[in-house]
């Protein structure tokens, strides 16, 4: 992956991969490639969730 995706982008990409996998028209090679990419994305999402810690930034209005 070139640029680190944010959580929402990663989830969207995962949904896309699911859809492609299910379309059945793709070759086994292609499926395996997609599957690998899907696993990578899933792990990225899990990592983001596991490492999350709520941060609070205070910005004065004046």
């Amino acid at each position, binding site marked *: 992956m070139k640029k680190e995706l*944010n*959580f*929402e982008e990663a*989830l969207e990409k*995962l949904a896309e*991969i*699911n859809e492609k*996998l*299910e379309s059945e028209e793709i070759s*086994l090679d292609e*499926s*395996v490639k997609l*599957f690998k990419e*899907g*696993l990578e994305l*899933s792990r990225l*999402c*899990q990592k*983001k*969730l596991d490492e*999350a*810690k*709520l*941060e*609070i*930034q*205070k*910005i*004065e*209005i*004046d």
Partner: protein
Amino acid sequence: MAGFNILTVTQITSYLKSYIDENKKLSGIYIKGEITDFKANFYSGHFYFSLKDAGAEINCVMFRSYAERIRFMPENGMSVIVRCDLSVYQKACSCQLYVYDIQPEGIGSKHLAFEQLKAKLESEGLFDAQNKKALPKYPEKIGVVTSGSGAALQDIINVLTRRWPVAEIMLTPVSVQGEDVPAQLLRAIQKQDNEIRPDVIIIGRGGGSSEDLSAFNDEALARAIFACETPIISAVGHETDFSICDFVADMRAPTPSAAAELASPDINALRQNIDGNMEWMRDFIRRKCDKYAEILDKFASVKSESFTDSFINKRQQKLDSAKEKLDYIGKNIVLNKEIRFSVALAKLDSNNPAKILKRSICRVELYGKPIKSAAEAKSGDKIDIIFSDGVLRATVDEKTEGGFDF
């Protein structure tokens, strides 16, 4: 009329005015009545109207300095209580009320102001569902406009720590007491929307007196929220009260905790979804591989030798039959040609005059035309009798009728 005390019009109306003005019972009084002939002068900002009841009517004036403090807009037919002084407008010698304050009868002025502002903004489309923005599913930055020390902030932090710690809270603290509150709220909203640019904004208020709530019923604040490009969740009123802010926001939450829940996905549900999806993908690939393996097995189960044998045999057979066909066709072509050639030759041969002569020994021609019967010639005709080896020119001497068999 000498000897009488003659007064001018001005003197008598002045006397009347001062007589009334000095009467303490006629200043700072409360009068109840129904508003009629209401006019707000656009240029001066003064209000002019009359108050009436079943028996009487009296003119009223409310100067701008007082009129602009009224939160609601007086309307004809409204039952009100006004605080006023009774005095005289000398030019017309008109007795009228100089009004300082108007209170709607029955309901409080704040409540009326609220209803009026609500109706106004609603008619302008500020509450329309079609103008509501969708909330982000997975916000990375959540703007919070509330008191920096109140319970509302703590509630929001608690919910987000549990549900969506992925987010960062961008807090613009505002004070929640005092005259300045609406202006502070407005600046905070604008700073969030223009500079901080979070994915969603929560404007919140913990429990408090109704005075706190009124700051969220400010028209300018409502318009700022409407103009905001960031989706806003309002958690200002309580379970039953609504503020103008609640109506104009993209989403209303009954409490700040509820607002935080609306703004965030549940991390545990998400984890489960992602895990479930990974499992699904694994399953899917496994199934797909199994399917291919099955197909391979089918090929492998046919013994390779017999497979190739039968394969080759089939093709050999095809090849053989093709060859036969070719041979047959080729032969036929040659045969046909031979036959045709010999037939043609025979035909040619039979047409050869020399051969014909040979067959029939001789031919008889009468003046160059072959004749086949005696009837065709008569006595004296010159005929040619043509043999294969020469021609006899002769004259018919005699003709006898009747044929004979050869």
